[in-house]
């Protein structure tokens, strides 16, 4: 019976997770950085669903479901924070936002 090795799914998940980190590190725009975090969460979700398949149980998918809700909530708050920052600083460039330091 031909099938895809489960490990491939997990490695895909790892790749996407790493891409998310890369985006967070190398992008200099607040919104893109935030989107990179969403990418990381998606990667985690893929792992959960794959493991759920591995055990033949639904609980991994439930976890994914909750992660999605959390991600949506984070998106609302995160974008509100970004809006507030933009309002006082008139910029989205993350490197400009470093007045608190040392």
């Amino acid at each position, binding site marked *: 019976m031909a099938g895809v090795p489960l490990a491939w799914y*997990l490695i895909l998940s790892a790749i996407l*997770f790493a891409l*998310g980190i890369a985006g*967070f590190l190398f992008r200099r725009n*607040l919104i893109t*950085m*935030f989107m990179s*975090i969403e990418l*990381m*969460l998606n*990667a*985690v979700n893929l*792992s*959960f669903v*794959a*493991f759920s398949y*591995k*055990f033949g*149980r639904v*609980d*991994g998918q*439930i*976890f994914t479901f*909750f*992660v999605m809700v*959390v991600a949506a*909530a*984070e998106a609302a*708050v*995160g974008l509100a*924070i*970004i809006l*507030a*920052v933009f*309002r*006082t*600083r008139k910029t989205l460039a993350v490197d400009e*936002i470093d*007045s*608190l*330091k*040392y």
Partner: protein
Amino acid sequence: MPADFIPSTQDLLRLLPEAVLVAAGTIGLVLEPLLRDSRKRVTGVFSLAGLIVALWAVVVSRAYPGTAFRNMIVVDGFATFFRTLVIAVGILTVILSLHYIQRERPESGEFYPLLVFSVAGQCLMAVGNELIVIFIGLEISSIASYILAGYLRDDPRSNESGLKYFLLGSFATAFFLYGVAWIYGATGTTNLREIGDIIAKPEIRPPLVIVGTSAALMLVGLAFKVAAAPFQIWAADVYQGAPAPVTAFLAAGPKAAAFAVMVRILMVAFDPIGAAWEPLLWIVALATMTIGNFAALVQDNIKRLLAYSSIAHAGYVLVAVTAHSDAGSAAVMFYLAAYAFMNVGAFAVVTHVARAGERRLSLSDFAGLARREPAVAGLFTIFLLSLIGIPLTGGFFGKFYIFKAALESRLYLLTILGLLNSAVAAYYYLRVLVAMYFHEPAAGTVEAMPVTPGVSFVLWFSAGATLLLGIFPTLVLQFADQGASLALVR
């Protein structure tokens, strides 16, 4: 199977404090638009009442120890201790904020419901027995904290603080989640007790490399929340930029809850692989103390100084976690309680001295405080002495129990380095003391300002608690001892 939908009364009683908190927050939220701007403080008073009722609910649910909601939460001594602690921190923060929020952003009453929700999230973290509950509790607490840190949205410092906390916090949460996914993949469960049982059995346990890696990823997330090195970097900036009462809250409440989760996860789920995480925590504890203390040496901004000091204190607590014993867990609990009071007290002083707009935060603004406001300076002295760890203050016994536990676990070198660290730490607290008592106030210093009743209450209460913990530590120690043996509630 309709019976499955309806939780038993006992289940509900075990969840009573969280239910009370959520109800209080929601009602406060509904109340808020009905009030005129000048009456927004009513939400604060209402939330205060809600928190006090929640404290009562903790006592009620303490009578029903055990698990609830299909092992999702567990009410034991450990949970009760931390629930009490975070609610107490919440109460003090609300009182501290009553005047502050009115002054800095008068039109909004949402502050208090947010605070109450955050406390509810921390309570969930304390009782969580299942990673999914812990995760949601963590997110409730964190998201509310992000908002609170950036609450003064017209102040660039405040919203920079919120942004940094939010972005880096979410970044670290992703690591935590990835770890959860892996441990689920390795053991097929997210229940802490079951994970521990599976790992303990050599015949069915997954490869230890995988368990270790999952534990590492989860620890990254938790170490971030407690501001342990090298994940401490956010803390100073966020604490400095956040409104002063919020900083007091952040450095005490969420940190205590994150430590509760860390201890529970390590002691219950990853207890069998102690040999793997102990060396790691050893290094982290040392690095955290050292970085916190040395960075604090060079600070001239009092909020930042206290921020680094709070990092260093997290390092001491980590020493107790590294001890990996019941005595260590008890020391964690006692220290966090002692730390919560001295920390909130110190920030209450900062709130008072900083004045409107938090402009007066430099060390030189504290010059001559002893003569301008002897009472405030005297109380601040108690907090600073406790932070140094002088006997007859809570800080002393906290350190005493931490290092005793560490020695019992044969962490000789770490104990020595930790004690050396606390010797170094004396220096920067001393700078504040010297400024207060021995320096002339800078030219053009404003006159003494009356201490608002809220700040005054928090000051006296925290000072009393700090001294009480230093003179009669047994009061709290007994609870900590009872709560520390997590293994009993199998």
